[in-house]
């Protein structure tokens, strides 16, 4: 079809000026947009207020749609569960018998651990859970990885707090509005989490790759190879993430930097827990022998 020439204003001076002016506005607006992009690198608070206002409207809708989705996708598995329940019961009973003595041993170990910790006068900071809420939506069209949490400053969620699921770390809070919060997932290319290897405590950092996986990079000078199956947990360095939250498992043997699969799939998590910012206290000073011992140890 021939392009309609509606834009051509004819001989009317007024229409010509109007059209010219609208192009001036468009180009001027594009220049303003360039400035806005530059400012967005600074994370201006005005932006988060704007985004928060929009989120306040969209999050309840997303949440209710999510409920519908869960209801529908839950039907097949519900039917399957109903028929699988007898065999599962037998299997679980067998498993319970087998794991009984393991539990006994673990209890003993736990008691011993607590006793040793008391001896060492270690003070445990138990990171308190601030809120439990659903991740209702995300940024599916963008190359950045954000999620929207349906709990905000009214529920006690503050900027910077870590967000975890039952299986592991999910991310941290970037912005809050009264009832919603924006979460930077650990999968985002700009997220960095200090981690350590469970096997030997090797320090490393977990950087998001952007494709649903993590890059584990050694933070140590020592040339330590990563083996497939190495599990990494948060180390507590940096003071944001509490230690010992599972982060990811290395998929392939490699050196210096390895690809890891995160433990917590944010798409499968039912509820996310927002925890308080972890601030480790200053390490207990080694008491110099013979000198003043007036410090409380």
């Amino acid at each position, binding site marked *: *079809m*021939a*392009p*309609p*020439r*509606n*834009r051509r204003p004819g001989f009317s001076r007024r229409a010509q000026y109007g059209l010219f002016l*609208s*192009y001036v*506005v*468009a*180009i001027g*607006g*594009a220049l*303003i*947009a*360039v*400035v*806005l*992009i530059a*400012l*967005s*690198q600074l994370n201006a608070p005005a*932006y988060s207020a*704007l*985004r928060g206002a*929009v989120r306040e409207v*969209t*999050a309840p*809708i*997303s949440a209710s*749609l*999510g409920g519908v*989705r869960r209801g529908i996708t839950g039907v097949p598995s519900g039917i399957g569960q109903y028929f699988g329940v007898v065999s599962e019961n037998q299997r679980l009973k067998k498993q319970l018998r087998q794991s009984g003595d393991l539990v006994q041993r673990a209890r003993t170990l736990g008691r011993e651990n607590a006793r040793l910790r008391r001896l060492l006068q270690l003070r445990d900071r138990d990171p308190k859970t601030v809120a439990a809420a659903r*991740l*209702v*939506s*995300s*940024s*599916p*069209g*963008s*190359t*950045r*990885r*954000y*999620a*929207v949490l349906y709990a905000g400053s009214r529920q006690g969620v503050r900027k910077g707090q870590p967000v975890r699921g039952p299986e592991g770390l999910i991310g941290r809070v970037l912005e809050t509005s009264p009832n919603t919060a924006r979460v930077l*997932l650990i*999968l985002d*290319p*700009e997220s960095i989490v200090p981690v350590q290897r469970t096997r030997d405590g090797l320090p490393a950092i977990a950087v998001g*790759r*952007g*494709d*649903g996986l993590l890059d584990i990079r050694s933070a140590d000078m020592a040339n330590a190879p990563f083996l497939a199956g190495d599990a990494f947990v948060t180390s507590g360095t940096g003071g944001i993430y509490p230690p010992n939250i599972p982060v990811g498992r290395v998929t392939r043997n490699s050196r210096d930097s390895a690809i890891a699969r995160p433990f917590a*799939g*944010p*798409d499968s*998590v039912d509820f996310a827990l927002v925890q308080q910012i972890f601030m480790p206290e200053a390490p207990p000073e080694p008491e110099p022998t013979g000198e003043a011992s007036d410090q409380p140890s």
Partner: protein
Amino acid sequence: MKPSSRLPLGSSQPSSGPHRWRAYISVIVASLLNTLPFVATIPILPPFGLMVLMSWRLLRPDVFAPWSPLLLGLFNDLVSGQPLGSGMLLWTLCFLAVDVIDSRLVWRNIWYNWLIAAGAIGFCLSAGRLIATPLGAHVDTALLLQIIVSIALFPAVFRICARLDYRPRKL
């Protein structure tokens, strides 16, 4: 039926108020698809807001003023997670580019429309990636997939917009 009782597509009938609202609202609804209730781990959702906007632009150039992609792009940025301003800039540039193409091209058929939209989608997604994400991120494979899927889906979006645009009218 008289030949004049129905407007052919792209006729020079100026858009009326409610019609224009239909176009704006359809772009906003398409942008809101970004808030669908799932947590994506890779860029997967086609830029439906842009696709609807381009469809309207190619179908009926008189519906949107040259500056309207600024506002619609701003709204898309607020819900999509891209840095604020990227949609404003890129969508407006696409609009201006289509205006330039329209001034050169005498005839435009569905293949030209598809080609123009493919260019706009590819440009907006790759430029958005450059603005939003550091260069070292491993998002390019997923992004390529997203671009291909979006281009493949464009005729469907175009058809929906044409459907919204169509209204029998007595003169």
